[in-house]
């Protein structure tokens, strides 16, 4: 605990000394993005319209006020006027704002109606919020994957300088084709999340048990970044969204690659694995999924997250070890990781059973993808 704080303190001092933000002149990050779609541009224009109307009203109202504050002080105007009502003026300043509001409401209602287009998309993607990552499933092609934050923990804890896309980068981005209507079917697995990509002007809550829809048609090829915008627990700030918009042929290629990879993965589970192969693969799975709680050294955090190094289950109880990863631990922070592939599960368990001296202390048994497949089979 103490060393943790010393670490943080040195990290803090380190960033202070390193503190020059790379790449971006962010003093100018002042306004909403115009975005990359017709809708987002319309929203931007609406925002600017209302902004300028407010500025205009503000200028008129405040100049009268500042004029009074300047010209009608006791020094300059020792005796106050006595008027205290005027029906005409009062009617005027009720009716005029009302008319201005109507002028705002008309374009706003039009844009909103456009955003509520109910027709199907050329590509339909189911987006599911998890604590704390996003899952994307392409309904037509069956492609499915998780998208995790890929920023290094060392960057977050100020141990190394931060990269350009700090907290806005993921291990696997959503890919969509340019110029096509893409519909997102947004839901959640545990608590409420919210899927926001500013460049598309989409922000839609992801609610467990319910499906919300949003759509976009992006005109410009590029990478667009978004964030979760509904408080969803500890790592709410650490589940970004990255959408890559590509040309149609590149998209087709990506889809076929993904399908092939999925097929290969299925094959992988059949093959015989060596300890070294599993450990190597498991290390990266561990870094993405486990390190936040159980820590790089497998020591966990005393009193909150149990240590894996030297844990009796990890050392000697292979069936229970598998069960914990598959089912989670009721009432504890440990979730089920059954959404990981068989290979990922097997390799990460093997990694924990082989690292931090566990292999020497315990039975050192490895877990193969087949063990996971067997676990999933019904036991009668």
């Amino acid at each position, binding site marked *: 605990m103490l060393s943790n704080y010393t670490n943080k303190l040195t990290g803090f001092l380190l960033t202070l000394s390193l503190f020059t933000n790379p790449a971006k002149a962010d003093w100018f990050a002042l306004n909403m993005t115009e975005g990359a779609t017709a809708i987002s541009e319309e929203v931007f224009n609406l925002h600017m319209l209302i902004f300028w109307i407010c500025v205009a009203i503000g200028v008129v109202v405040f100049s009268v006020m500042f004029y009074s504050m300047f010209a009608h002080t006791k020094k300059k105007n020792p005796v106050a006027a006595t008027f205290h009502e005027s029906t005409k003026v009062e009617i005027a300043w009720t009716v005029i704002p009302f008319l201005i509001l109507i002028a705002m409401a008309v374009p706003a209602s039009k844009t909103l109606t456009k955003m509520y287009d109910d027709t199907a998309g050329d590509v339909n993607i189911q987006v599911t919020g998890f604590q704390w990552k996003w899952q994307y499933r392409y309904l037509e092609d069956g492609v499915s994957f998780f998208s995790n934050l890929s920023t290094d923990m060392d960057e977050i804890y100020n141990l190394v300088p931060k990269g350009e896309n700090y907290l806005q980068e993921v291990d696997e981005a959503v890919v969509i084709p340019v110029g096509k209507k893409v519909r997102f079917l947004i839901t959640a697995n545990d608590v409420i999340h919210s899927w926001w990509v500013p460049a598309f002007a989409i922000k839609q809550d992801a609610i467990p048990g319910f499906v919300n829809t949003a759509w976009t048609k992006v005109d410009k090829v590029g990478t667009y970044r978004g964030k979760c915008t509904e408080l969803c627990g500890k790592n709410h700030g650490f589940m970004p969204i990255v959408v890559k918009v590509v040309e149609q042929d590149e998209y087709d290629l990506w889809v076929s690659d993904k399908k092939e990879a999925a097929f290969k993965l299925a094959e992988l589970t059949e093959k015989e694995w060596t300890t070294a192969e599993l450990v190597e693969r498991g290390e990266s799975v561990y870094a993405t999924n486990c390190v936040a709680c159980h820590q790089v050294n497998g020591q966990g955090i005393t009193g909150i997250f149990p240590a894996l190094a030297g844990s009796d289950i990890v050392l000697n109880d292979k069936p229970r070890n598998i069960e914990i990863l598959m089912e989670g631990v009721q009432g504890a922070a440990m979730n089920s990781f059954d959404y990981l592939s068989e290979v990922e599960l097997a390799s990460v368990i093997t990694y924990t059973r082989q690292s931090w001296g566990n292999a020497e202390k315990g039975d050192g048994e490895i877990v193969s993808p087949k063990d996971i497949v067997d676990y999933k089979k*019904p036991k009668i």
Partner: protein
Amino acid sequence: MNNKGKTSVKFLGMTVIAMFFFSFALVPLYNVFCEVTGINGKVFQSENSQEYTAEVGRDVAVQFISSNNERMPWVFKPSNEVMGVVTGKYYNATFYVKNTTNKTMTAQAVPSIAPSNAAAHLKKLECFCFEQQELAPGEEALLPVKFLISNELPNQIKNVILSYTIFDITDYNQENLAHLEMHTEKN
């Protein structure tokens, strides 16, 4: 304090109590509101099977989606992902479900329709989501849903998504049972 004061205290006290119960009344009110407007894509069982069968309307594609809520280990997926239907007719669809664990579990499926303004036009005669599903270890089942999309479905909607999320309510039920037992013991 005078009588007028006592009357106002009584009146205000009653208002407070009434508002407290009003907050609970919001629950059924909200459900009625959802049923009428289709907010949140909630779907309710319809009683009438005769009304729509005579008319035949236009083609609509129905897409089925399944999700497992947190810690729900069952296999759960639609038998067919997409189904072409004609409005005004009843169709049967099924979802495949399998309890992959080694214990008996109970599940509850929660339906949702997208786009949300299609919800009011989707009538279900039978649905596995109307009741809880209990499966023994390793047991598989095909869960049926019998539905109809009414002719009043807004014209621009050509594709309706029917989603089910399956929740594990095994422990939940046990908890409730435990509570019930506790109360009966007391009595």
